[in-house]
């Protein structure tokens, strides 16, 4: 530590500056959770210890955390990319759901393909579905002024109805004895394998994060997306095709969410079944905000959330704590991450300029 050069020191400082708010927010949220646990007569230390063990106590648990993180990374990237373009994609949930559905369909209905074709094909199906479904609010936002927050909330319900319809109707699993509405299991050739405890989907997710980081920070497309998000008027003035960019950002965001759903179907569940993806898109919001829209940080915040989800059942089992506590911690965390002033006030931190996050404001405005 002592022999660090000043530049190394600066680098560390920079990292600390960019992570301190989320980090402290997590601490605060865990404290609030601890208080609720105490009030309801549980031992918070024991609970958190079991939570930790449940997440990292064995290779199997670690694998589960990675599995849970994988769709979160995609959902988080989807939301973060939307934020970058000034769009609040609450619809990631619906896009993810339909992505999962289509991947499930291609996964079981297309037969006789080798894995190296079938897997990409099913992923592509999820990707395209998510993209198309996200294009609707994108187009509406760009060309009719319908605010994406409201239209994507509504489309989420549409997505649920659609996926229910297909799972009960035309694509229902007709295996003898099955009574549940769901799709048949995907072909083995569409299953995404694991390498040791690491799901291949997770590796793809990490690579995708790097790619998105590069696109946002180092390409002209990223430049345009950022501009449109920060100042659509100036972007139009500068010759960017703002409406098209809004649609494009929404489409890419939806594609990411769709892949998230596909990976979930193909790597974890093994088929599409309603109710298996509940809340993933909404968790994407938490992930993106926790990561302050930085694609690399999305990996870390997904891992954190994935660990909480992965450890929850062990916590419930051994520490006798209802797992709704996870919801409470998550909500509190979101609150503290976004309400920086609370964190600043608690920890007496000074304001820094670059820490503001941009999210859209009201709807109905054009």
């Amino acid at each position, binding site marked *: 530590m002592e022999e660090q050069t000043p530049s190394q020191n600066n680098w560390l400082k920079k990292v600390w500056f960019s992570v301190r708010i989320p980090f402290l927010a997590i601490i605060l949220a865990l404290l609030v959770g601890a208080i609720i646990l105490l009030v309801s007569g549980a031992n918070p230390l024991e609970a958190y210890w079991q939570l930790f063990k449940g997440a990292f106590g064995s290779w199997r648990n670690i694998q589960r955390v990675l599995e849970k993180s994988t769709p979160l990374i995609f959902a988080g990237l989807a939301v973060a990319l939307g934020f970058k373009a000034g769009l609040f994609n609450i619809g990631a949930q619906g896009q993810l759901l339909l992505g999962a559905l289509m991947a499930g369909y291609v996964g079981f209905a297309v037969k006789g393909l080798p894995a190296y074709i079938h897997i990409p094909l099913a992923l592509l199906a999820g990707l395209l579905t998510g993209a198309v479904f996200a294009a609707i609010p994108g187009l509406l936002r760009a060309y009719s002024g319908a605010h994406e927050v409201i239209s994507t909330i509504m489309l989420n319900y549409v997505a649920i109805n659609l996926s229910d319809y297909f799972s009960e109707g035309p694509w229902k699993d007709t295996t003898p004895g099955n009574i549940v509405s769901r799709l048949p299991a995907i072909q083995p050739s569409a299953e995404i394998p694991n390498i040791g405890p690491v799901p291949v989907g997770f590796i793809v997710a990490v690579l995708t994060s790097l790619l998105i980081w590069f696109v946002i920070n180092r390409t002209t497309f990223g430049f345009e997306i*950022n*501009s449109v998000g920060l100042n659509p008027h100036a972007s139009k*003035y500068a010759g960017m095709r703002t409406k098209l960019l809004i649609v494009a950002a929404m489409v890419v965001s939806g594609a990411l969410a769709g892949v998230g759903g596909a990976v979930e179907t193909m790597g974890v569940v093994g088929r599409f079944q309603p109710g298996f993806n509940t809340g993933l898109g909404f968790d994407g919001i938490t992930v993106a905000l926790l990561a302050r829209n930085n694609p690399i940080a999305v990996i870390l915040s997904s891992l954190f959330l994935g660990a909480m989800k992965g450890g929850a059942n062990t916590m419930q089992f051994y520490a006798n704590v209802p797992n709704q506590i996870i919801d409470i911690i998550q909500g509190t965390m979101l609150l503290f991450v976004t309400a920086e002033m609370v964190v600043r006030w608690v920890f007496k931190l000074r304001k820094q300029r670059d820490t503001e996050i941009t999210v859209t404001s009201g709807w109905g405005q054009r």
Partner: protein
Amino acid sequence: MDNTYSKTADALMDTDKSVILEAKHIYKTFPGTVANDDVSLELRKGEVLALLGENGAGKSTLMNVIYGLYTQDKGEIFLNGEPYAIDNPHDAINAGIGMVHQHFMLVPVFSVLENMMLGAETTKGPFLNKKAAEAKLRDLSESFGLEIDPHAIIEELPVGLQQRVEILKALYRDVEILILDEPTAVLTPQETEELFKIMRRLTERGVSIVFITHKLKEVLAVADRIIIMRRGKVVGTTTPAETDEHGLASMMVGREVILEVEKAPAQVGKVVLEIEHLNIHDNNQMHSVRDISLSVRAGEVLGIAGVQGNGQSEFVEAITGLRRYNSGEIRIDGKRMPQEKPRTLVEHGMAHIPEDRQKHGLVLQYPLTSNFVLCTYYREPFSRHGILNENEILRNAEELMERFDVRAPSPVTVAGDLSGGNQQKVIVGRELSREVSLVIANQPTRGLDVGSIEYIHKTLIEMRDAGVGVLLVSSELDEIMSISDRIAVIYRGEILAVLDAAEASREEIGLLMAGHISE
């Protein structure tokens, strides 16, 4: 203090007028800025006190402190000799202070009447009494000759009338002290004259007025006393009798300022911009530009004079590809331009200095590096195959900051942290540094102080001398007069006349701007 500007016998004589408001040792800081640094000022009964100073000198801040919008860090305010705590506008209104703000403070979707009533509602039981309010408004309109339709919706009114509503709003509240923060920026010379008459009528009734403006002529015409601020401090007090425009200008900026631009006769070349029979509807489907035909030639400055809100914005937006037009044709270098394609126009050598620098000109959260390539990021050398070349972008920013004298801590400072004048320089630098044949400059110096104005005027003339066609749109008559070669006057969306700048007179153009067509 420089004794040239110390109180003269004249000014001392005025002291027998009683001091109605006094601000003592006001300090006000914003993060990173000291806006008011130990400012003291006194206002006497029935006088017009002009407050003069460059941009960011702290004039509006001081007035906002007096009006209770801001709370001073230190200092006190006295009313009629008694200390008076003004913590919010409510206190100020109660004390008989009214203010017409630099930016309109009207609710756009409300009617004139609703805007009048807001904050000073007359009620009958629990309900609003619109009848009583309307009667009061009509009385007021009559006694000051300020006619207005009480039921008109603000956003549908031209800015001149909106300004009228602002003044009526202050009068509606029975003011003893009236603060006017740059009220003439959007008025024609004639409307300005009208305003001065009203001000005189008010002072005769004992109302005291603080009048802020950047137009030195107006100060000399209407003020009883003049206070000059610079960098948050009061740097002098004078009277119109003691000084002239040059005196005021150098006092404001702290150095000698050249108010007239020196330029050689224009060397006119081929036509670069041609507009034929252009018609535009605005957002409310009202005709805002009617059948305009104009052309700009290489090596000349065509000035478009007009009061704000007469269709200039729509006109410029249409030629720069930001707005669809309904009919007509636009050609650059003889080539027909498609609708709504700013990029195509940039490719054809058009530069555009937009009217609203923060809305259109800059991405405030972007660093200067990105803002400098906002229109050219997709081209070599700034990017190749869709991938940005950070080194080139940085080098470009360093070069332009040097060339256009942009004062900022570093090329990666975000644009939003720059002062208005420096922000404008970034835009000018970006637009004028690439190969262009045509410059569209819309209100390029709005709200800037004389120093910055001088610089931008000089740059525009340099472009013209280098053979570029310049279309200058401005509501500042002085600006139009001093740098245009030809002047077109726009009124209610129509070009009333195109005059040779050398032969046109201020009065003639002023009348045209008000819609009077002379024979």
